[in-house]
């Protein structure tokens, strides 16, 4: 007996262990035992011995089916998670999804969702395989009576063992010991279960109770906090850029005295105030309305289409009416200038500059020839025909409605945009905008048939050109 326990009554015989020095003798022993009807036995080897499952009679494990079941669950979770978070909104009263509209992809983009789904399947299956194996094996099992046998330490090195359980039907201690020696076992031992192993040390109960009590403290604190109002400063864990050392527009300006916090440094207590008298703006566009907005001096400053223009107050203006050139709401339009403003030199250089700028900014929709056959426009029209986009076709510059427009109106279109055409004010300087207007008129002049009878009237801007 190699067991360390003193108290014999605490030890229960649970089996007999035979030691073998190589796998062949072990296998013969296993087969012999199996053939004699022994069921509750197990072999212990340093490495998996080929063919030992059959020798002992171990059935195939159900682990693969467990993994398959979990993998199917992983598939549903992976796809479901992506569908819920990226393709739905407000489906549940909490944790709403957030529909991402990204580069025109469908909300539920199945091809794009495959990689994550695959990874989720693999991850869940791997856990299932590993944990399933541990659970089915009953591991961790740190208190195995076999580990108390010193010889057994060689099992992880180079010795092979075979144990027959005492509660097997065919168990006969002496017969088994004889058989083991016949089969070439180098040693046979009784295996005892020391039942003192299973008694918990007394202090553990105290520790467990103490831990349980301690575990109640955090929830208690939480419930206490929920029933109270907190008057301290709010915890702001992630400062980000929430407190910036700068002045925002509609706030107070700098203080004169940080102690009193009542006096301000400037007379004007605003953080942002109007420019001081005498300030000269670098690009003051308020002065010359004709140049900067294309509207005649004295007429209304509202230049955008769609907003009602107040004209009535100014009677000195030449009444300059025309039909609204576009199909938007028929509103009163401001008085557009009909001549290129005097700041712009109407000469060949300006026309060429206008051509250059036109080719850069306008040709992409209106076409290099001005017919409205630009690449972007063609594509957008195709998309809008198939319903994938909404688009108003870029006008041909030879369209009668455009021919009739005064130059100020054309200038305004460039500045502020029209319909699906965006505003170019920020991208093209006013001088260049007028150059483009000049170029547009030059283009229009190249098509005699597109020019209406009005083109030859002296009042038209074409008189201004060389």
């Amino acid at each position: 007996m190699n067991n360390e326990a003193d108290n014999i009554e605490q030890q229960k015989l649970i089996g007999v262990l035979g030691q073998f020095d190589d796998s062949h003798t072990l296998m013969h022993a296993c087969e012999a035992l199996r053939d004699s009807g022994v069921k509750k036995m197990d072999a212990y080897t340093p490495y998996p011995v080929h063919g030992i499952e059959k020798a002992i009679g171990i059935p195939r494990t159900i682990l693969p089916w467990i993994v398959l079941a979990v993998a199917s669950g992983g598939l549903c979770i992976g796809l479901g998670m992506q569908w819920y978070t990226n393709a739905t909104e407000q489906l549940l009263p909490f944790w709403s999804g957030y529909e991402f509209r990204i580069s025109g992809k469908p909300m539920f983009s199945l091809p794009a969702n495959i990689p994550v789904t695959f990874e989720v399947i693999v991850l869940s299956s791997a856990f299932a395989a590993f944990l399933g194996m541990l659970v089915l094996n009953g591991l961790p099992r740190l208190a195995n009576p076999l580990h108390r046998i010193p010889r057994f330490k060689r099992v992880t090195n180079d010795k092979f063992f075979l144990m027959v359980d005492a509660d097997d039907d065919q168990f006969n201690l002496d017969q088994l010991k004889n058989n083991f020696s016949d089969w070439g076992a180098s040693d046979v031992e009784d295996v005892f279960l020391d039942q003192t192993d299973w008694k918990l040390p007394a202090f553990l109960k105290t520790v467990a109770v103490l831990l349980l009590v301690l575990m109640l403290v955090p929830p208690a604190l939480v419930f206490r906090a929920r029933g109270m109002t907190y008057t301290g400063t709010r915890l702001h864990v992630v400062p980000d850029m929430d407190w910036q050392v700068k002045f925002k527009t509609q706030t107070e300006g700098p203080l004169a005295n940080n102690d009193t916090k009542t006096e301000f440094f400037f007379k004007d207590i605003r953080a942002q105030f109007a420019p001081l008298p005498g300030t000269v703006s670098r690009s003051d566009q308020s002065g010359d309305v004709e140049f900067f907005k294309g509207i005649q001096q004295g007429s209304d400053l509202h230049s955008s289409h769609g907003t009602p223009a107040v004209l009535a107050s100014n009677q000195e203006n030449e009444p300059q009416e025309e039909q609204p050139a576009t199909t938007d709401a028929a509103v009163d339009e401001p008085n557009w200038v009909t001549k290129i403003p005097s700041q712009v030199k109407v000469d060949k250089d300006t026309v060429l500059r206008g051509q250059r700028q036109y080719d850069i900014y306008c040709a992409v929709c209106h076409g290099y020839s001005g017919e409205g056959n630009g690449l972007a426009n063609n594509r957008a029209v195709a998309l809008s025909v198939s319903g994938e986009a909404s688009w108003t076709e870029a006008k041909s510059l030879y369209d009668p409605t455009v021919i009739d427009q005064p130059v100020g109106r054309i200038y305004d279109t460039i500045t502020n945009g029209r319909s699906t055409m965006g505003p170019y004010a920020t991208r093209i300087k006013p001088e260049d905008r007028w150059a483009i207007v000049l170029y547009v008129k030059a283009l229009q002049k190249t098509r005699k048939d597109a020019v209406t009878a009005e083109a030859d009237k002296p009042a038209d801007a074409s008189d201004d050109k060389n």
Partner: protein
Amino acid sequence: MAHIRKAEITSPIVTLGGESTSRVLPVLLVVAVACIGAAFFFGGAFKDTGRAAFMHSYLVSYMFFLSITLGCIFFVMIQHLTKAGWSVTVRRVAEIMGCAIFPMAILFIPILLSVLGGDTSLYTWVKEPADGAPEWAVGDQRIFDIKSTFLNPTWFGIRAVVYFTIWTFIAFRLYTWSVKQDETGDKKISLKSQAYCAPLMLGFVLSLAFAAFDWEMSLAPMWFSTMFPVYIFAGCVLSSLATILLVCLLLQKTGRITDEITIEHYHDLAKLCFAFIFFWGYIAFSQFMLIWYANIPEETFWYRFRFEGGWILFSLVLLFGHLFIPFLGMMARTVRRNKTYLLFAAIFLLAMHWVDHYWIVMPQLNASVYEGYFSSGEPITKTEYVQYPGFIDLLLFVGMGALFVASFCLVSGNRALVPLKDPRLHEALNYDNP
């Protein structure tokens, strides 16, 4: 301890047998000539109107059998390179099927002649216009200048000759050496095969890649995908594995080589099939997803052809039949060790492989009509432009198949269907899957 088998052939019948071959062979040849000939005549190969459909059908069946042949050549090479022991007894079957490259070279002649003769029914780039850029190069001279350097009949022909030379050399070289080893058992032959396969593999892979470009990618001359050769390669390997499985099962059913090919070999072949089903799916998905994601029209049109106008049916059949169903079906160990099931699985995989090549080739038949619709922006209504497989496809398939089988009989002749004295024979007979 597990029983050790000796390294010797114990099956009663090891060859195809002279008498049965001499009876079957003429029948096969007659069937082949009759079917292919009938297809030529009834498929409209000699008329201008039906020729395009016929040529596309021809290419589909041709690529099907060629991919099996090339896959078998690859199988043999990789077994030599990896010094594999398990596959020794199934390798001879693959070697014999690899030698079908010779009849495949002959079957290529109609395609070659049509290209050299300036016929545009299959490849639109064949005819060079008198001046300016042709329609297939979207009227762009610069594109035409570049593409026509590669896509022109002369170089197409030269490249085809190079490919077939390489493939025939590899297939017959390895087979003749293997057969020689049947008599002498010379270990040096194994070493020589292994040494030759290393550089030959380079040539094989390059020629396969460019053949894929030449014969299937250039059907849509404006389209390109660097993954395409890998996609074709995956199909080659999968179909050849399925064919090796099928042929071994059928041979054993007729009582031949019953002892040398064990359930372990079928298990391994099935495992490899499973792996390459997944690999094919991975390659097909990667190619599709990248093109879908970037959404660049110069690439997506190829897939739009195959998802609209009724072709979506074939795409779904491929997705489910070529990937999902076989993947789930071949996962279980019990399935992989059941011969009846494997017989069914091999046939199913081969059917799906044919659908794969049909899906690659056929939509190009009506490509010019699709293109008109794309620029108009109207969606293509269902089933307008789909071309379902018909009688001509069946004729061509049966005809080429008969020729393939005839090649097997002819090449194998009276020689053994397993290597008799391969130095690694004992490994093939003595391993098992746990």
